[in-house]
């Protein structure tokens, strides 16, 4: 193995080499730097990477810690002391974080090295990373297509072997969907399982931080580091954290897998449907019991999601006013003009669109009709899942109804883009956990485009969905497939 081969390793394999002292943490950072400098001109996964800071941390890394010496890429919405945190927005240009988010502190305590800030849809609003105010990230499987979003930079970095693993965040699917479109593993933990302290808020009743990785085992390893109670956050769950790797290796015999009839959605791409159907049959052949279930309020989830998420966003984004940090307009005539022009000039179009929608559904006369009603339907969606999980251990579906799409293909019609969140947003509304793992490819114009299989579990059942996802993954070769940009480089 040469240093050029290092970036293709999983976290688990990298750790073995580090612990055997066959490679040093510093050599890993250097190899990663070479890889990023080589391919990120094409992929554009990163907004910035402070290699010198990472190299310095590597010099003192304790490789015997759980993630000792492992570099982890960080979505640009998570604060790291001394580094920019722009949320890919012009309104946070020039901002430098004064402190570490809890997830960063937890990663460091486990020995990991935060390395690089990944691109995203501005303030995590989008499903393609096209709403970044700074750059376009390309899908490593087909550079003419989006990587998904909003954690598109994190997904593309892992898929292109520009990161061993990454943190993303999601509000309605922004970890799972880009993981699916970029062919990697993405986990959304239970609401409250991972602290959001130091993570810029989009919709506080929905947001969660989670890992994007090459394998299910790597996902479990990162979860072991970041999950847990944080007294600085009121929604943080004060519950014991299991070892998420403990159940890995158990088979699927006796596991009950639910398939919801409401998830048979007409707009689903036939190749996506076929890949997911095959995955379900395969799990059945491995001993899992397949059970039909019903989630009757599924059809309302996207409407509920876009009312609640935009309402909360309109309140959370009120803090960006050009007073304490970030962009400020020039020569305002009064304070109102200062606020309105700073925000009008600093925010991109999707963020503005959502602030308008969110402000409207909270405004006097419309609150009951939209916001309050949506909260009540949300409770019905939560109850649907609670009933389903009485009968099954996990629910499976496609992660996204379509594979990666072309740049510009879906931007003209926001409603169409929103509707693609149908499989992912219900889990955020219900606060449950979910994972996306690769389950095949759609073939389009000579390109292989990854398809993601989603597995949802009840609240705090991450260990079980990781076990099920791992058993499926290990019985297939999908996770061993590499994006063209990784293989072309390896053969060079």
């Amino acid at each position: 193995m040469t240093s050029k081969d290092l970036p293709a390793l999983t976290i688990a394999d990298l750790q073995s080499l580090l612990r055997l002292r066959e490679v040093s943490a510093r050599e890993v950072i250097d190899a990663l730097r070479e890889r990023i400098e080589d391919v990120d001109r094409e992929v554009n996964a990163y907004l910035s990477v402070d290699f010198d800071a990472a190299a310095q941390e590597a010099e003192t890394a304790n490789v015997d810690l759980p993630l000792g010496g492992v570099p982890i890429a960080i979505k640009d919405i998570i604060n790291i002391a001394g580094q920019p945190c722009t949320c890919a927005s012009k309104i946070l240009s020039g901002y430098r974080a004064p402190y570490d988010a809890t997830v960063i502190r937890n990663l460091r305590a486990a020995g990991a090295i935060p390395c690089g800030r990944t691109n995203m849809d501005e303030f995590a609003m989008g499903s393609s990373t096209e709403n970044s105010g700074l750059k376009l990230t390309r899908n490593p499987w087909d550079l003419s297509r989006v990587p998904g979003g909003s954690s598109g930079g994190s997904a593309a970095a892992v898929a292109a072997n520009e990161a061993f693993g990454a943190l993303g965040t999601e509000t309605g699917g922004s970890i799972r969907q880009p993981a699916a479109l970029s062919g990697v593993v993405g986990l959304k933990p239970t609401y409250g399982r991972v602290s959001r302290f130091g993570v810029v808020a989009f919709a506080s009743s929905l947001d969660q931080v989670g890992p994007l990785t090459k394998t299910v085992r790597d996902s479990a390893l990162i979860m072991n580091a970041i999950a847990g109670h944080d007294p600085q956050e009121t929604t943080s769950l004060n519950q014991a954290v299991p070892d998420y790797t403990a159940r890995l290796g158990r088979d699927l015999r006796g596991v009950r897998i639910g398939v919801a009839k409401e998830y048979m959605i007409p707009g689903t791409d036939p190749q996506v449907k076929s890949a997911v159907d095959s995955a379900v049959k395969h799990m059945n052949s491995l001993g899992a019991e397949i059970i039909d279930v019903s989630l009757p309020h599924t059809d309302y989830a996207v409407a509920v999601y876009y009312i609640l998420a935009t309402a909360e966003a309109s309140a959370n984004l009120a803090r960006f006013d050009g007073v304490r940090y970030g962009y400020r307009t020039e020569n305002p005539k009064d304070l109102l003009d200062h606020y309105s022009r700073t925000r009008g000039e600093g925010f991109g179009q999707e963020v503005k669109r959502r602030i308008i929608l969110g402000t409207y559904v909270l405004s006097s006369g419309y609150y009951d009709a939209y916001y309050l009603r949506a909260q009540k339907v949300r409770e019905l969606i939560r109850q649907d899942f609670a009933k389903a999980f009485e009968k099954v251990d996990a629910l499976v579906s496609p992660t996204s109804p379509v594979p990666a799409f072309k740049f510009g293909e879906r931007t003209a019609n926001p409603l169409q883009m929103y509707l693609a969140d149908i499989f992912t947003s219900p889990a955020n509304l219900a606060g449950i956990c979910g994972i996306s793992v690769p389950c095949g490819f759609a073939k389009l114009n000579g390109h292989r485009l990854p398809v993601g299989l989603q597995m949802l579990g009840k609240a705090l059942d991450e260990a079980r969905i990781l076990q099920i996802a791992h058993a499926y993954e290990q019985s297939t070769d999908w996770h061993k497939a590499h994006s063209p940009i990784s293989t072309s480089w390896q053969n060079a």
Partner: protein
Amino acid sequence: MAKPSDLDVRYVAKLARLNLTDAETELFQKQLADVLKYAQKLREVDVGHMEAAAHGVPIFNVFREDEPRDWLTAAQALDNAPHQANGLFIVTKVVE
């Protein structure tokens, strides 16, 4: 439920302290009317007996000891300000 046509983007933008160009106002008026029309489907759901859910997890009233602890200094808190002086954030004049 209100009619989607009730949305007046120009008025809501004022409430949100958000300057929009004429082109944005016109575009959002059309696009958000479509989104609100889609949201009308929530009218079909019987929610008469439902409690509103603030989020998916039943946690209420989280308290901690009210004790002083170290946090950012004033200088650190001011460090990102576009305009600061004398330990204060400087903004556009609000009194004559």
